[in-house]
Structure formats: C-alpha cells, structure tokens
C-alpha cells in the first residue's frame, strides 16, 4: 500500500545537539516530498520540499533534508537544535501522478532538554 512512515513517535535531544528525523515512503515512483512543523498552538508551517534535482534540500530555520532514492527516505536534519525547535514534525507526500492532496505521516514529537 502507498504510504508515508515516520518511525519515531517521540525524540528527545539536548539543546545544541544534532537532529535527524526519519521519513520513509512507499510508492511506485518518487513522490513529491515535504516536511512541515507544527509548534504548540500554531498552524503547520512548511520547512522544505523536494521535487527533483539536488538531493540535499535546504529549508527554513536551519533545517535540511536529504532524499535517498535507494532507501525511499527523506530524512530531516539540523546540525544544532535550539529550544525553540521543540514541536511536532510531519513528513508529507504528494503522489507522483500529481494528486492534489497532501498525505501526512503520523508525526514525530521533538522535545529539547537543556
């Protein structure tokens, strides 16, 4: 079945440490890939997206993501997290045949400890 998976429900990292959030997809061809962040009490905000081309994508707030076709993955990374990065992160896809709706993963809640 076509799906997008975020294997980690909750991750805790120390402030200043590096971060990697995992996202895997299962489609016959590469979908369009997105990462969104939802801070407490706020709406979803787009961090970055991948359509084609360079497999390392830079986004806002110092985030980047790497597309790996061989692993069907689109992992989100940040070299050094800040307390303000505490939020829920969602990987999302639009299927390669261009369906209009976003299909979201189940989300990863990020907690930052001092």
């Amino acid at each position, binding site marked *: 079945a076509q799906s997008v998976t975020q294997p980690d429900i909750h991750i805790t990292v120390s402030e200043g440490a590096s971060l990697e959030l995992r996202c895997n997809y299962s489609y016959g061809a590469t979908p369009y890939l997105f990462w969104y962040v939802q801070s407490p009490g706020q709406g979803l905000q787009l961090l970055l*997206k991948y359509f084609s081309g360079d497999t390392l994508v830079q986004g806002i707030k110092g985030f980047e993501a790497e597309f790996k076709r061989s692993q069907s993955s689109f992992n989100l990374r940040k070299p050094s997290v800040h307390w303000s990065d505490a939020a829920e992160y969602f990987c999302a896809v639009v299927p390669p045949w261009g369906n209009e709706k976003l299909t979201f993963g189940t989300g990863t809640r990020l907690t930052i400890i001092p």
Partner: protein
Amino acid sequence: GAGVSQSPSNKVTEKGKDVELRCDPISGHTALYWYRQSLGQGLEFLIYFQGNSAPDKSGLPSDRFSAERTGGSVSTLTIQRTQQEDSAVYLCASSLSGRAFYNEQFFGPGTRLTVL
C-alpha cells in the same frame, strides 16, 4: 498580509448537534483544503476546492460531513449529528492554485472540536 484564519478556535458541542466551522483563506488563493488532525487518525485530508471546479470530497469520512465555498473565498465545513469520534482539530489550508506539488499550502491555526 493576513494568513489563513479559522473560527471558532474552540468549539464544544453535545453529541447529536450540528456544527459549522469557518475558514477564511489568504486573499487571492484559489485552492482551499480541509484536513482533520486527531489522536487516532493523525492528519488526514477531508476535501479540496479549486476555483469553480467540483470539489474533491474523497476524504470526507461520512455523509454527515459537508463543505461549501462561497464566492471562491470563505469556506464552511458542516458536521451534522456530531459523534464523539468527530472530536479533533480541523485545519484549513489555502494555496495560490492547486498543483499541491508546486504551490505551498498555508495552514490556519485550526478549530478544536470537542463532542461531549
């Protein structure tokens, strides 16, 4: 400029009552989406409007759910005879046009619906 706004921010209702949730998209955005965020189901698509085209209702969970978009702008999501499983945060998003792979969807803060 103003972002997507939704009202009310919170709604508590009794089982069996009807509710209406409102979304004001960003001015000039022709595409409008409704999503639902619940503990059991995560974030799921409900309905999509694009200009004057017939809406994509493929995500509506039952015929108790309906939505309309008046004048290509404001949208109202109506839930009839609410059930406890309808309790969720209802999110609205808009974008310049469809083509979700190309045009960023901007999300509102959501309406938290609680059905007692």
